């Protein structure tokens, strides 16, 4: 059988060719050459800041572009970016930014106030389909322009005073406006480049490809292979280039988090995007120095459909919320130092502290159920708990299903659906109880509360409160001091927690494994990284300490 012989010879040869033994690990060579290897979650869809919506894209874009202000990674207070300083009018409605003279695009062009004005104009073009256009609605008339109720862009509160001075007029005093400026929707874009590759409001033009992309951030794009990696290299034209220590960053798509952890262990990554649940205990026990966890500005919760008859009674909803042992869930199920959530807004959101909502109190919960006509869970209809297909959601749901059965005697059936079907069911009100998660867009209670207004696009519970709407839409935007505003917000959140159309479960944590060679990483509730502060310590991870990484 010559065919068989040929096959066996060729396979042996190719196996030999394939297996030439493993050379130096990514991290070892990276430490030497100043190349950071990062796990980056799902594959980036696009690198156009007016099209993307995800965290992975955000991570790459903050390396490629820079807004007017940056955030101090330890305090999250605004620090100078392209703007060296800014003035805020006494009523908080007008901002004037003074741009630095030495800000440059990666092709050497100066970064000007016009660049910002043009990019924000582009962000508001309806044809582009920018899902984050609402981030710019803080600016006067931006919303009306986006909805095409207003066609004259000059009526929008963006005013170029000169090349290096930009004035912005807001719709309301927005105390978190400086925070928004560090969101990618507010980043400047290089007009000439975009126009070279097509009309400015065309989706998916080729300007974002390596070689075409012109940015003003500390790094510039050199390689982008789908499902493989994105490489950014130090941008010599960046105004602060002398303080950028890294020579390059490699972003790897790591959708499979188990594989990501193995990549970290074998020295292919300096930092992971997350940590598999089952690995948390192991690292905590054996290598606590590699495991980094920190509270994250997000809430894991269940929505309750208040239009389902037996769930329309707020006593039932409160009973459901009060009979979940959140300590057991975060310690035994999620295991990532999550904070048990008894309010919707995460604790201490820039000085805001949520009102006392409720406590874990199964006795009170049973009493409430009895009051509502279901003593011991009798006659309570089987309720469906819906979640999108994922192991983590499944685990929490299984634990809660059992808690409700044990404490209240009620039966809940678990249903999982694929992500798009799930969204469809929840949006259409076609559920009883549904898993949800909400990550704040910026550090302010407003991003957690304004979603619950009557018929808000993200409400989806059917819950409505006129007083709540008034507080969020009318009173708090006009508040004169921060204290007053927070007091109104607290009142609103108290209403929400009293009626309980949602069941808060835990505050997210950001979890990552970090190679000890990475220096300058500061934890914060946004999991925000200022890449120019990072450096790699070449000495700390020689071959010896690499071998100490856990097996």
């Amino acid at each position, binding site marked *: 059988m010559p065919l068989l012989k040929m096959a066996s010879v060729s396979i042996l040869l190719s196996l030999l060719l394939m297996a030439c033994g493993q050379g130096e690990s990514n991290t070892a060579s990276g430490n030497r050459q100043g190349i950071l290897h990062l796990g980056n979650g799902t594959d980036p869809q696009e690198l156009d800041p007016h099209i993307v919506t995800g965290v992975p894209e955000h991570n790459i874009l903050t390396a490629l572009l820079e807004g007017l202000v940056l955030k101090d990674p330890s305090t999250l207070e605004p620090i100078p970016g392209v703007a060296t300083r800014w003035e805020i009018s006494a009523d908080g409605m007008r901002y004037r930014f003074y741009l630095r003279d030495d800000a440059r695009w990666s092709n050497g062009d100066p970064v000007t106030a016009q660049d910002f004005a043009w990019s924000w104009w582009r962000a508001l073009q309806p044809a582009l389909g920018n899902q984050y256009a609402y981030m710019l609605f803080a600016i006067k008339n931006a919303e009306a322009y986006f909805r095409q109720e207003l066609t004259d862009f000059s009526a929008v509160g963006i005013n170029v005073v000169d090349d290096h001075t930009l004035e912005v007029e807001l719709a309301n005093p927005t105390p978190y406006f400086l925070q928004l400026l560090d969101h990618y929707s507010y980043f400047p874009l290089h007009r000439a480049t975009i126009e070279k590759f097509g009309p400015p409001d065309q989706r998916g033009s080729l300007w974002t490809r390596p070689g075409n992309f012109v940015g003003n951030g500390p790094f510039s794009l050199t390689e982008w292979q789908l499902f493989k990696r994105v490489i950014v290299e130090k941008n010599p034209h960046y105004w602060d280039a002398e303080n950028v220590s890294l020579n390059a960053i490699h972003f790897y798509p790591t959708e499979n988090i188990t594989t990501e952890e193995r990549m970290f262990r074998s020295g292919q990554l300096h930092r992971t995007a997350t940590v598999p649940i089952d690995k948390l205990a192991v690292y905590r026990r054996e290598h606590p120095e590699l495991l980094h966890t920190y509270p994250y500005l997000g809430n894991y919760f269940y929505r309750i459909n208040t239009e389902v008859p037996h769930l329309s009674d707020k006593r039932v909803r409160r009973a459901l919320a009060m009979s979940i042992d959140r300590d057991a869930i975060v310690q035994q199920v999620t295991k990532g130092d999550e904070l048990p959530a008894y309010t919707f807004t995460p604790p201490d959101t820039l000085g805001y502290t949520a009102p006392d909502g409720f406590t874990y109190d199964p006795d009170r919960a049973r009493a409430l159920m009895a009051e509502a006509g279901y003593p011991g869970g009798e006659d309570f209809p089987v309720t469906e708990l819906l979640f999108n*297909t994922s192991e983590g959601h499944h685990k929490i749901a299984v634990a809660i299903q059992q808690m409700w059965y044990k404490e209240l005697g009620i039966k809940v059936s678990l249903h999982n*659906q694929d992500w798009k079907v799930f969204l469809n069911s929840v949006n259409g009100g076609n559920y009883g109880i549904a898993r949800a998660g909400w990550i704040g867009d910026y550090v302010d209670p407003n991003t957690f509360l304004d979603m619950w207004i009557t018929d808000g696009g993200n409400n989806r519970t059917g819950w409505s409160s006129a007083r709540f709407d008034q507080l969020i839409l009318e009173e708090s935007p006009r508040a004169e001091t921060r204290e007053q505003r927070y007091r109104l917000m607290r009142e609103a959140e108290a209403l929400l927690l009293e009626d309980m159309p949602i069941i808060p479960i835990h505050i997210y944590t950001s979890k990552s494994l970090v190679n000890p060679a990475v220096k300058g990483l500061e934890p914060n509730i946004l999991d925000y990284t200022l890449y120019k502060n990072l450096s790699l310590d070449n000495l700390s991870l020689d071959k010896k300490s690499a071998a100490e990484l856990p097996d």
Partner: protein
Amino acid sequence: MENPHSATLTQEQGSSLWRDGWIRLCKNHMALFGLGVMVFFCVIALLTPWIAPYGYEQQDLQLGASPPSAAHWLGTDIFGRDMLTRIMYGSRVSLLVGFVATGVALVIGVLWGTVAGYAGGRVDAVMMRLVDILYALPFMIFIVLLMVVFGRNILLLFLAIGAVEWLTMARIVRGQVQNLRHQEFIEAAFSMGLSRWIIIRRHLIPNTLGPVIVYTTLTIPNVMLLEAFLSFLGLGIQPPQSSWGLLISHGVESMEEYPWLLIFPGLALSITLFALNFLGDGLRDALDPRASKD
């Protein structure tokens, strides 16, 4: 068409084939062992609700994942649920799905393949192109639609699995039948004037049994694992129920930390497969029509 003499002849031959087969099977110790194991597993599965040491949904979050102990012979999972109990309950689902779905695939596949292979020509072309079409349709979308239209339902599971598994079976059987059709003994049967149906039933199907049995024993594990995948997607069984496939795929996630969560359901599945394999080989050897002439 039929001539009475040959009909009685083939009938005798047919019945003696099965009887001889049974006798030969009883002489094959490995096959008997396989049969015994399968019967044992089925009995355990049937009796599970009465003999399981715990409830399959009964949690002990404080205990969490614990290795095998006197209280929990096979350890507990991360919710503190008893693994032995979950494996026993899981066997009900896995064995049922394994046998029923494979059975469905077997019947459709063998009939389809035999008819296509026997008829040849245009009929064959149309039938096999239909198989090609079904092969090519995107399975994931099909699953999503099934779920949306019918909700979670164990019958759907059989439908979804049967819909994919019979295709390969049909191709294999067709290849075999085409190959057999022009062998001397089939040509001889033709010249004796036997009817088509009798040729198919008495000669073609028994002669394809070898590859069919082999492929069937291969399909059963596949079906059990496919069930886990579909259940994960939300089509099959509903948590907190379990199946071997689901237990294994959960076990893989934590195989370094809690190896017993993988090892025991894995063992259960492996033992079943070996038993089925021995039984399948034994059946194949026992039912080989030519062996009977020795």
